[in-house]
């Protein structure tokens, strides 16, 4: 049987999603028997361009990235975006509230040439068509493997359409919003098994929104538990501040700097 050829690429990111791929230890050798990896800079010397499936991590954050992602799109039959930076802009998009000049001034004494060149940050889908998204910061290992199995079977990888609150309830975690932690579970897309509340941190919606988020109700829930409505907006800025993602929530929840 011909194994499909896959390649991994990273743009502006921490490469943590690729590390999650390398961390499927129990299944790594099995995975490699099903897929031929022809390009994975973090792990191997070979670099071939005859891939069918491209897994892409990270945001587009400088001019060269645009040409490179276009070339990958041209070569790949299927392009899969991995993780919050690639799917949503993620934490990278926080910088878009500042100008590139401002960023460079603060960190590099104003240098913006050569290696210091920087754009505002965008998700992959802002430049090329993305066929599938595997969400999360970082991606979940089991979900990645499920997605690969789906792609090999020619079916569409599944992503839950409902809220993190559903998985939190199923898991039996006491509600942390009721404890006064600024949790976004009510509007956030599930698939993570609600791991953050289970380990004592609020959901920060790193997987984006579920199919019917109600941001007004989120703001009211924050207010009911003694937190400012603006805090909901501030939490949404962490992973969902790229302008087209923000459009979903900013009318319902004006952020502090907009008011």
């Amino acid at each position, binding site marked *: 049987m011909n194994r499909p050829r896959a390649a991994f690429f990273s*743009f*502006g*990111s*921490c*490469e*943590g*999603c*690729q*590390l*999650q791929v*390398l*961390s499927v*230890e*129990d299944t*790594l*050798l099995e995975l*490699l028997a099903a897929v031929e*990896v022809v390009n*994975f*800079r*973090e*792990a*191997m*010397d*070979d*670099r071939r361009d005859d891939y069918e499936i491209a897994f892409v991590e990270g945001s587009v*954050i*400088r001019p060269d*990235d645009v040409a490179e992602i276009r070339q990958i799109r041209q070569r790949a039959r299927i392009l899969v975006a991995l993780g919050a930076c690639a799917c949503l802009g*993620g*934490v*990278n998009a*926080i*910088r878009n509230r*500042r100008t590139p000049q401002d*960023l460079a001034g*603060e*960190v*590099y*004494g104003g*240098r913006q040439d*050569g*290696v*210091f*060149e*920087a754009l505002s*940050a965008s998700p992959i889908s802002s430049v090329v068509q993305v066929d599938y998204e595997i969400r999360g*910061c*970082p991606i979940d290992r089991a979900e990645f493997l499920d997605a690969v199995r789906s792609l090999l079977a020619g079916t569409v990888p599944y992503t839950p359409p409902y809220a993190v609150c559903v998985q939190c309830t199923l898991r039996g975690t006491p509600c942390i919003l009721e404890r006064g932690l600024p949790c976004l579970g009510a509007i956030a897309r599930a698939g993570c098994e609600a*791991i*953050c509340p*289970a*380990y*004592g*941190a609020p959901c*920060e919606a790193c997987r984006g929104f579920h199919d019917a988020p109600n941001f007004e109700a989120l703001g009211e829930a924050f207010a009911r538990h003694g937190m400012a409505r603006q805090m909901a907006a501030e939490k949404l800025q*962490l992973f969902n501040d790229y302008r087209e993602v923000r459009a979903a929530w900013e009318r319902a929840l004006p952020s502090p700097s907009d008011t």
Partner: protein
Amino acid sequence: MGASAAVAVRHLTRVEGHGNIVVDVQDGVITRCDLEIVEAPRFFEVLLKDRPADEAARIACRICGICSVGHATAAVHAVEAALGITPGPKLRLLRRLNMAGEWLQSHVLHLGFLVAPDAFSEGSVLPLAASHPDLVKGALRLKRLANDICSTVSGRHVMPISYHPGWMGYWPEPAELEALRGRLAEAAADLDALVEGFAQIQWPALARSAEHVAALEPGGVYPMMGGPLHSTAGRVTPPAAYAAVLQEFVVDHSAAKHVRGPGGDGSREGGGTIRVGALARISLAYDRLHPRASAALERLKLAPDSANPFDNVPAQVVEAVQAHAEAAAAVEALLADPASEGPAAPTRPGGEGIGIVEVPRGTLVHHYDIGANGRIVRANCLIPTAQNLASIEADMRVFVPALLDRPKDAITHALEMLVRAYDPCISCAVH
């Protein structure tokens, strides 16, 4: 007329992030000898600004997937220092367990997946899985264990969840710790095999002195959770004065700032270059190693005062054994007294705080100013790989003349191996 050579490696493989090696030798004279850091900056110091201090660990850990526990730890240390929070001994122990997990994960990833292919002349771990299945399977088991240590403490290794200033959002159940105890005991054989495997490997001879730096903890324990900066030049510097020992400066060919020590200008000719990481820690704290790690040091014939950067690889093997011993000791201590420890409270609303930890690649510093409203006003992050960049280039300058009689491919490969020996983490270095 001397020899001429040109090496240009775009996007060096089997390292974290994007770096290029560019070397030009004309008639025996080195005209270029750079490790270009072309990773795009993400401006994390700016991303942290104006965010509530409780978020610092969860934002900072996104600097790097491989080093995310280290960043989370440095971030909570910095916030705790700023707000006058004194974490209790059990909380510190729990965090130490997680750091040991990350050390084991990171060192085994580097040794088994990124470096071992060089040692056995392969291009990746894939052919190694066929030619040396025991080595690869043992490394995979150790990596799995390391991941599971971190999952037990903080939900997952990449982007740990439970870190807050003064408290941890999750406390492992005794049954979870007991499961780790059993797994740690079983893993001893895989570590022995790792030591034996790497004891067979002969690394290139290269000697260049640099000042080795590590943050040594009080109490004679192996350096991991931070303390004053010690150096092989005999300097001892309190954390508050870190910027005098680790001086950042911008160079044209690297999006990561370079760092020089106080002993010179940090130029590529070698003055004032420093090294941090496994070899530097062993230089400064070999007498603090666990007996099993000391035995590994002997077996690997690693000289603690080595000036050969390739010795960072066997030093990581020694530290993998050390991390395993640390994790086992922490699990025992937590099992002896498994009740969770209550939160430690802030004693002031804001202030300035410095958090230092020894992460797998060396000394990591996070330095924050926190305003009276509990938000981060200013952040500075000093990354181990950035501290090593000037040393890597100075080593290349020493190494290149000895390679000139070889074919171009061999020169290229030798330089790639040198860079990999430092286990650079380029996403971190640029952040």
